[in-house]
């Protein structure tokens, strides 16, 4: 009855097209929507077969869309569904091009402001801690103004860091769109709770030497803040600009070289082993003979050599292909 008719018409529309996963996805998506439209029409009193025919007719030029999905280029270009619509394309282009310059400049100012806030928030904590640690015997005695500072510190540094987190998330950058205000504020609040717990726990444990109190104060705040933060991160949606995603797709394709060319991958493995063996030998040799600080130099050189090798072998495909 109605369903068979819709399925038949849908199959007809997809005849002769490669059954790639992408095309299959599109077909299933269209099928569910068609069934809904047919149900709507038949409730309105249209005969089932007529409803199916009308629903498929209403779809419009699905063929061009399907061809685009299957990777074939619609040579007529009548539908041209691959072209971005002016609305989003213009805004995205404007955002990517025109805004890049001022965004960078505001970033610099934001970093300065954030640093000042962070320093101001941490001053009482550091000052009071330094004082009390220097006068460990007088903790219970007569330093009330420093105790006040210590009590205030978690409530200063936590919100300050939260503010920095929220403000930087709401900022547009060259690669990211600004996060909606509510979500950014939630991130900030979660970070503030987490850090308040951290600082309070640190004070109780390190300064007042009361591990039990540290545990009781820090753990609940830590759990609440951490849980909230984890929830936010888990439900986070894309914030990158289209050109970043495009670049990521291109890089993903470039990364295929080792998959396509197993010999190159094997060679890379052998070279990597050689580089790291030599690096380790040089590290130990310099460490035992000269000093361990200077031993960092060969280690860094090893990292640099490895990265250089990775870059030339993974992306500079032309150099190594012929051998």
């Amino acid at each position: 009855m109605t369903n068979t008719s819709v399925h038949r018409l849908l199959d007809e529309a997809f005849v002769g097209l490669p059954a790639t996963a992408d095309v299959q996805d599109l077909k299933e998506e269209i099928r569910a929507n068609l069934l809904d439209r047919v149900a709507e029409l038949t409730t309105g009193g249209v005969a089932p077969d007529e409803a199916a025919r009308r629903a498929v007719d209403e779809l419009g030029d699905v063929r061009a869309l399907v061809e685009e999905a299957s990777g074939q280029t619609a040579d007529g270009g009548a539908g041209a569904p691959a072209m971005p619509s002016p609305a989003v394309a213009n805004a995205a282009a404007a955002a990517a091009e025109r805004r890049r310059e001022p965004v960078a400049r505001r970033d610099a100012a934001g970093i300065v402001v954030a640093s000042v806030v962070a320093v101001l928030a941490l001053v009482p904590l550091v000052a009071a801690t330094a004082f009390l640690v220097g006068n460990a015997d007088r903790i219970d005695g007569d330093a009330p103004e420093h105790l006040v500072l210590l009590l205030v510190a978690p409530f200063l540094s936590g919100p300050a860091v939260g503010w920095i987190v929220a403000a930087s998330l709401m900022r547009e950058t060259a690669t990211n769109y600004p996060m909606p205000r509510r979500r950014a504020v939630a991130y900030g609040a979660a970070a503030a709770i987490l850090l308040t717990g951290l600082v309070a726990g640190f004070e109780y444990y390190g300064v007042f030497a009361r591990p039990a109190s540290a545990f009781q104060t820090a753990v609940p705040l830590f759990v609440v803040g951490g849980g909230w933060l984890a929830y936010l991160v888990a439900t986070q949606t894309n914030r990158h600009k289209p050109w970043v995603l495009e670049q990521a797709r291109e890089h993903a394709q470039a990364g295929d070289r080792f998959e396509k060319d197993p010999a190159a991958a094997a060679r890379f493995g052998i070279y990597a082993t050689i580089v790291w063996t030599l690096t380790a030998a040089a590290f130990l040799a310099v460490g035992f003979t000269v000093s361990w600080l200077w031993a960092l130099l060969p280690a860094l050189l090893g990292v640099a050599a490895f990265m250089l090798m990775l870059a030339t072998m993974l992306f500079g495909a032309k150099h190594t292909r012929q051998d």
Partner: protein
Amino acid sequence: MQQASGSTSDGGADAFAADLLRGHTDTIVLGVLRGRDRYGFEIYKVIRDATGGDYEIKEATLYAAYRRLVKDGLVEGYWGDESQGGRRKYYRITDAGRAVYRRNVDAWVVTRRTIDSLLDLKGSR
């Protein structure tokens, strides 16, 4: 459908409006998804109801819009878990999508003001 009967006298005006509407398909879809996740037919219905069924955006146009939006990372698609009937593909707006939506709405407000003044609507209103 209904619009066939309504558009006999002023087909030109209808074409103008439909064209204008189609130029903002992506932004309209983002706006529809702002409240909650929806699937294709739901989005189609919301748009149709909002326009009083007069200038509907063709479903093929919408499918093309979904593909673009997903590619640009403004929207994410995922399959629902319907047990009977076809499985529905739902769309969820991303933070990037919300940012683009806001920007396009701002641009539209400015454009609308300009067009209104160019078409000399102030005097008649």
